[in-house]
């Protein structure tokens, strides 16, 4: 009798443990693997610049826009919460090196120079656009046409590299003046203040500001690649430290899950960014 009771008790313990393990396995199967060595356990810490709608900005004190919304979905797919660190653009890469965050998600163009030092998970098709005052009548086909005018740009951006590439070839009587700011919002403000002729910003930022303030801004160029005529536009991606293949793999899998599940499409539609769908160029 005693052995039967202990047998029942053992069976009950084994059974419930097995059931518990199955439950745990089932719920973990719904979570994609998270990156190892997170800055803060349970959180995906993300460095970003929240000053340029619609890609990243503060709406009612909450981060909103393509970058924060996509990275939040990516973190959720890995059952992580998101911690957003908002700082200036030139602080993003040093911060990533210093392990202040796990990834950077801030419309970072994937360029050869950057690929030497960092790894990327592409999530968007970028592109650069010149913006000018509504009544200036200026129209440019490529960066070289900006010779003789003044342009505002963001420090360390692909736009800055694009203009500096052609700046020295400007004729002596038509020099290009560059004014370097810390974020795209300020660069656009220079145009609104009429302190510069054009601002060179990301195409979604240009589209948004022209839509919001049609009396102040107008497009001054087609969407450019920043690498010269007849080149492909850069893809933009989530940045990971070089060599952290597990992190890159985890993020890539979560991004794919977001695309398959429809969340990616929802974000593109919400902010009118269908032209940036990364799946079109893959």
């Amino acid at each position: 009798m005693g052995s039967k009771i202990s047998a029942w008790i053992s069976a009950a313990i084994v059974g419930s443990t097995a059931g518990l393990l199955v439950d745990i396995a089932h719920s973990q199967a719904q979570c994609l693997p998270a990156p190892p060595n997170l800055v803060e356990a349970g959180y995906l810490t993300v460095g970003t610049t929240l000053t340029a709608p619609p890609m990243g900005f503060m709406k009612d004190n909450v981060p909103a826009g393509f970058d924060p919304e996509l990275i939040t979905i990516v973190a959720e797919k890995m059952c992580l919460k998101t911690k957003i660190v908002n700082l200036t653009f030139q602080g993003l890469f040093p911060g990533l090196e210093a392990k202040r965050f796990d990834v950077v998600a801030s419309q970072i163009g994937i360029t050869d120079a950057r690929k030497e030092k960092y790894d990327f998970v592409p999530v968007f098709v970028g592109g650069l656009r010149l913006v000018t005052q509504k009544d200036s009548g200026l129209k440019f086909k490529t960066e070289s046409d900006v010779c003789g005018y003044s342009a505002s740009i963001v420090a360390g951006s692909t736009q800055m590299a694009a203009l500096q590439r052609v700046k020295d070839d400007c004729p002596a009587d038509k020099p290009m003046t560059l004014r370097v700011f810390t974020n795209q919002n300020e660069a656009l403000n220079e145009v609104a203040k009429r302190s510069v002729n054009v601002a060179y910003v990301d195409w979604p930022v240009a589209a948004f500001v022209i839509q919001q303030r049609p009396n102040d801004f107008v497009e001054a160029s087609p969407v450019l690649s920043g690498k010269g005529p007849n080149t492909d536009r850069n893809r933009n991606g989530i940045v990971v430290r070089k060599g952290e293949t597990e992190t890159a793999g985890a993020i890539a899998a979560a991004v794919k899950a977001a695309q398959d599940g429809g969340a990616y499409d929802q974000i593109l539609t919400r902010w009118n960014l269908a032209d940036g769908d990364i799946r079109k160029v893959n």
Partner: protein
Amino acid sequence: MHFDLKYFLDLLFSTQFFAPVAIVIGVASTAMIIGIVVGGIGGIILNSPFALLQRAVRLYVTTIRGVPVLVQIVFWYNGLPALTGGAVNLPAYAAGIIALGINEGAYMTEIVRSGIQSVDRGQREAAQALSLSYRSMMMKVILPQAVRIAIPPTGNQVVNLIKNTSLLFTIAIPEIFATGTNIFSANFKYFEVIAVVAIWYLVLAIGYGFIQRAVERRFARGRRTLYDLAVS
């Protein structure tokens, strides 16, 4: 440890920072002159019998000392155009120099005020005994002595001003720190570039130190005691 010594030395001895250094010297000198003029007037007012003017100067000093320099720079550059609907739109250099100059004026007001107050009361009484007018008393007796007392704290202010010019990167003035930021944003060599930037500021501060010593020596003339004269 990752340190690219060759790149660091190349950058340190390159001419890339010459123009930015010239800009820092130009902006800092102009702002300091504005600050000294404003501070001189303010300090004299605070030691004068004009109560209403004194209140105005005290309000100016309290406000400027209580607001961060960065906020003041952004106010003059972006705040004014927004406030006046674009009617007042200062170019970057003007906004930067005015912001730094007015900021400097508040601190110089306090330095001049305390310099004047530090002059021995007996000097003022002696001047009055000699029937010197207020203007003569200030110009010939009090201020020359107050200037000597004010030189060391003023030197502190100059060095602070040179360092504060780094804040002008926010309004796209291509000074030393902004130039460094542009360089390391493109090549990711953060430490090497920041080290060179720091060294340039140090060079400026040490260079100013020589100037200050020369100025102090000039104002110390005539202060040699009987002992100095006896042994020289």
